[in-house]
């Protein structure tokens, strides 16, 4: 079972699926949807089977495949996963089918066929699997950059009104980061040629090198900038609100849920083990950025009137927490950070999805255009609340475990930063509840208001919108305002239910995931010179009497 090329299959299946979906004749949208769902479910199955095949206590990298690719550069097509990468693959496996299902009936704004949408989505899935599964730095870089292209098209072709601006901004930001990283990747190779006699990109070989501290700093910065743009840390973050807001909902979910995790994953996988001295030296600065992000983005989230922008800003705050966990250099915090990566994907993914469902009903992204939805769509409101609570890391939801681990693990080594970040949990409660109260609570109002009966009759014709608008001006205010909003449909329930279930399940019993993650985190911590066994208490514990 372990000999089966799981990872290669997980890359190949969606790629082939994308090609097949793209090659479908025009007008076969239904087939495209079903094929995309089937393929993504197959990948989920593969991810689960791969997890079964993975031995948590075994070698660091498992399920490995390695083929020489560009011998001239010393590049291998080398795949393999540790626990950290594996849980990310599981996250991809879960999110993509959900996204496919959520995009089932999306009316694309660009009049483009959904067939193309699903083809890009599957291609994106393939590349996302690749980026987490690569154990060759060059290969990682290739996937890292190639991933931009499908996302760029998803935003640009299927996004909101300012999609062109958002797509270009996304592409250029990421590209700039990627190019800076490219310099570092090449530098790493050159260094490895000096250190090891022969240039290589193999992660395991690079990990063992002793690099000159000055060089380490340069290379670290090269990688760091790329990752800090990807998993936006303040001040590299301004692309995310635009992209998150303009992307189609499915795109936003994958963008924030998975794509941006490559950044934090990169911190942990590449920055720390490859440049341990530089990581230690520069950690205070990174932590300052991370904590600044937690507070700054949370405050900004409160100031947003666009729901998708708001959720994007919350993600920036969450990325601050993840970075805090990674750069605190304790096993507890880093395990929490990895768990956070998964949980944030689920929680914020759900939040984006449910915000998308609301937007699908009202056609507006403005918070102010909604109100009192809970009274008539209790299921929608309930899912919204669960997503919001997960976002503010309420105990019992998955995010709590990870946020708690990050903070409790960071506190022993970085008390000041941790205390500041902990203040962020109040702000998190504020932005979530403000959003929830404004949209779901209160008297009915906003774009979903039912037009009064006498005006709805003539509006059956073509330009209903205009007629209704002019009519409401003349008509007396209707006595009991009601919203014209339907509660979640079966399809939407099928989207939300597994996510809600995961939110609760991982909130109550996260230990299986932690068991997967911890060995890899511990290995990383010993690379960076921290005690892999975790924090040792400052005061001696005497036997309890």
């Amino acid at each position, binding site marked *: 079972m372990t000999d089966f090329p799981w990872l290669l299959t997980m890359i190949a299946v969606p790629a082939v699926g994308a090609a097949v979906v793209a090659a479908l004749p025009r007008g076969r949208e239904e087939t495209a949807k079903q094929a995309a769902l089937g393929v993504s479910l197959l990948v989920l199955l593969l991810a689960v089977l791969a997890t079964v095949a993975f031995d948590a206590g075994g070698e660091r990298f498992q399920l490995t495949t390695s083929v020489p690719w560009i011998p001239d550069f010393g590049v291998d097509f080398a795949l393999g996963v540790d626990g950290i990468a594996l849980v990310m693959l599981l996250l991809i496996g879960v999110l993509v089918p959900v996204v496919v299902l959520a995009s089932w009936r999306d009316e694309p704004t660009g009049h483009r066929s959904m067939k193309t949408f699903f083809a890009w989505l599957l291609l994106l899935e393939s590349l996302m699997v690749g980026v987490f599964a690569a154990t060759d730095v060059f290969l990682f870089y290739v996937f890292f950059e190639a991933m931009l292209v499908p996302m760029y098209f998803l935003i640009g072709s299927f996004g909101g009104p300012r999609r062109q601006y958002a797509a270009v901004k996304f592409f250029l930001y990421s590209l700039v980061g990627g190019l800076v990283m490219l310099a570092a990747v090449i530098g790493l190779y050159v260094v490895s040629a000096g250190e090891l006699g022969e240039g290589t990109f193999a992660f395991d070989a690079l990990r063992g090198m002793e690099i000159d501290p000055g060089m380490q700093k340069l290379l670290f910065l090269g990688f760091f900038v790329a990752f800090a743009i990807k998993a936006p840390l*303040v*001040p590299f*973050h301004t692309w995310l609100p635009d992209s998150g807001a303009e992307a189609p909902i499915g795109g936003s979910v994958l963008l924030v849920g998975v794509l941006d995790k490559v950044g934090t994953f990169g911190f942990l996988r590449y920055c720390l083990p490859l440049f341990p001295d530089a990581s230690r030296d520069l950690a205070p600065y990174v932590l300052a950025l991370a904590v600044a992000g937690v507070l*700054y983005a949370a*405050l*900004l989230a*409160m*100031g*947003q009137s666009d729901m998708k922008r708001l959720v994007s800003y919350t993600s920036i705050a969450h990325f601050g927490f993840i970075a805090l966990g990674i750069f605190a250099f304790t*096993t*507890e915090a880093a*395990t*929490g950070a990895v768990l956070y990566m998964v949980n944030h994907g689920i929680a914020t993914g759900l939040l984006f999805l449910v915000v998308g469902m609301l937007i699908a009903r009202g056609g507006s992204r403005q918070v102010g255009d909604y109100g*009192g939805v*809970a*009274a008539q769509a209790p299921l929608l409101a*309930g899912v919204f609340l669960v997503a919001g*609570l997960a976002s503010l890391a*309420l*105990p019992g939801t998955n995010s*709590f*475990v990870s946020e*708690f*681990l990050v*903070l*409790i*693990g960071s*506190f022993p080594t970085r*008390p000041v930063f941790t205390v500041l970040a*902990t*203040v962020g*949990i*109040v702000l998190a*409660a*504020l932005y979530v*509840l*403000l959003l929830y*109260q404004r949209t779901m*609570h*209160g*008297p009915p109002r906003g774009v979903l208001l039912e037009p009064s009966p006498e005006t709805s009759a003539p509006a059956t014709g073509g330009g209903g919108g205009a007629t209704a608008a002019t009519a409401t001006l003349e008509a007396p205010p209707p006595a009991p305002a009601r919203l014209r909003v339907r509660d979640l449909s079966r399809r939407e329930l099928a989207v939300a239910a597994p996510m809600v279930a995961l939110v609760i399940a991982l909130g109550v*019993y*996260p*230990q299986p995931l*932690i068991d997967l*993650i*911890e060995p890899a985190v511990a290995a990383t911590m010993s690379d960076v010179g921290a005690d*892999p*066994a*975790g*924090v*040792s*208490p*400052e*005061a001696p*514990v*005497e*036997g*309890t*009497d």
Partner: protein
Amino acid sequence: MDTAPADGLITSAWLLIALPLAGAAVLLLGGRRTDRWGHLLGTGTVVAAFVLGLLCTLQLDGRRLDVDLFTFVATGSLDVQAGLLFDPLSAVFVLLITGVGALIHVYSIGYMAHDPRRRRFFAYLNLFVAAMLLLVLGDNFVALYVGWEGVGLASYLLIAFWHERPSAATAAKKAFIMNRVGDVGLALAIFLMFAQLGTVSYDGVFGAVGTLAGGTVTAIGLLLLLGACGKSGQFPLQAWLPDAMEGPTPVSALIHAATMVTAGVYLIARCAPVYDATPTARAAVLAVGAITLMIGAIAGCAQDDIKKVLAYSTVSQIGYMFLAVGLGPVGYVAGLAHLLTHGFFKAGLFLGAGSVMHAMDDDVDMRRFGGLASRMKVTFVTFGLGYLALIGFPFLSGFYTKDAIIEAAFDRGDGWGYLLGGIAILAAGLTAFYMTRLMLMTFFGRPRWEPGVHPHESPSVMTAPMVLLAVGSVLAGFLLVVAFPLEEWLTPVFGEPEAAEHVVAPLVVSILVTVVMALGVLTAWLFVGRREVPVTAPVRVSPVTRAARRALYADAVNESLFMRPGQWLTRALVFVDNRGVDGAVNGLAATLGGSSSRLGRTQTGFVRSYALSMLGGAVVVAGALLAVTAG
């Protein structure tokens, strides 16, 4: 004291939490199918939990038993087990929560009978009971924290139950946020314990408190106190509790009077080993208690909303409890006893207030009440008993437990002891004043009802719990202090009670308190009972009254210190982010674009200028090469 693994029925103590939780899950997931019998299920699970809790308590026999469930989170050196601790302290709370909870569930069947969302109400109530039980049963600080925030969620859901009302939605949010501020303190305390001791279990932490530096223990104590203040509506986080009265009245009774708000007292009592080691933090608890005691009592005197009066009263009474537990070993039992009796009479008072509101078409303004004593006999009698218990009428519950606290305060023996005792006695007088005012305005005098209001007694499903609670209000004090002393029951937790050296004789204190109480009642009668109560509140009042009406400007302070600056900050940051951070990037792009078009102008299209640029380039190249060679 050693912790032993649970045996017998207590091994299934997890069912205490699981039962109401399952009830909540069934009701929430079951949807409309469960509408018909949902309230019965909800009530049934809590009653079952009460019975189970009672049986467990009977088996307990003063032991400290641990129920290990599963590994919640274990990574690195952090090991958090999901486990329950069943000891005399938690048993007391289990009985209070499930007992009062069950009564209030029964009451709610009637109170919410006509609400289309009754099923969901019971689901939330069940959720609350489950979370609250987790809070008191957890055997480590993380479990406590989970329950802690869980009750916060339930409280949020229930305050916002009528969420179409913007005031309810806002009150719920306010409650959650202010609680979260406290939660930060609790969380930081847990982080500090882990960093210092490497453990978060009660046993581990309490066993090793002695090894910690004094400053660290004080820090932990203060942080825990912050958490307690948030949950219990104590100064400076007291402002949310009166607003929380926006929720349905049973909620106010159960959550915002009897149980959840007392969690802070539980926390401090549970962490007695920590506070025993830090006089500084204990002093802070005392200060918080005393200040809140007065704030609540003063604000309670000027409210016209019947539930607000009770809410401020709750704030004030919990202040008593904080004062008590802040006194250290001598006060823990006194504080907890008052907590229990308060649970009975305040729940009873709220249920009575609910009954009154039920009769008055959900009006809460006492200025439009009056003369209800004859129309609602059961309510009047039960409410009256609760009232007497609260103001400390001799030989009713409050008399025993409040006096004990005041005695304990005097027993400090120093000047502070007299000050605290004096404050407590003064507040007792104020309590008598505002509660008498409430009684007079509601039940006596001339009816001032709105047209169309026809007060009537509530159905028996509502009055029965009120009667039971009234009985409790009358007897609880005697039972807990005299008949079956709580002190003995809790000895395994807090150790043998020290023989108290009374500075002021208990009898003197009792007489003093009773006299002050009588003065309060008298004053209230002079101010309210003798005159006609205006239907609208007078505008021209003294600054003291104005301040009391606005609860000593707590909201104003919060608004001007946090909310408005926060809003400005947010607005400023949005501007900075759009214009500054994003602007810098866009500016860079614009600069590039601008230089592109400016540079593009050099591409004039004239061959001769191209040739010039080439010649210039050649000269530069040659010059540079020569320079390099020469240099």
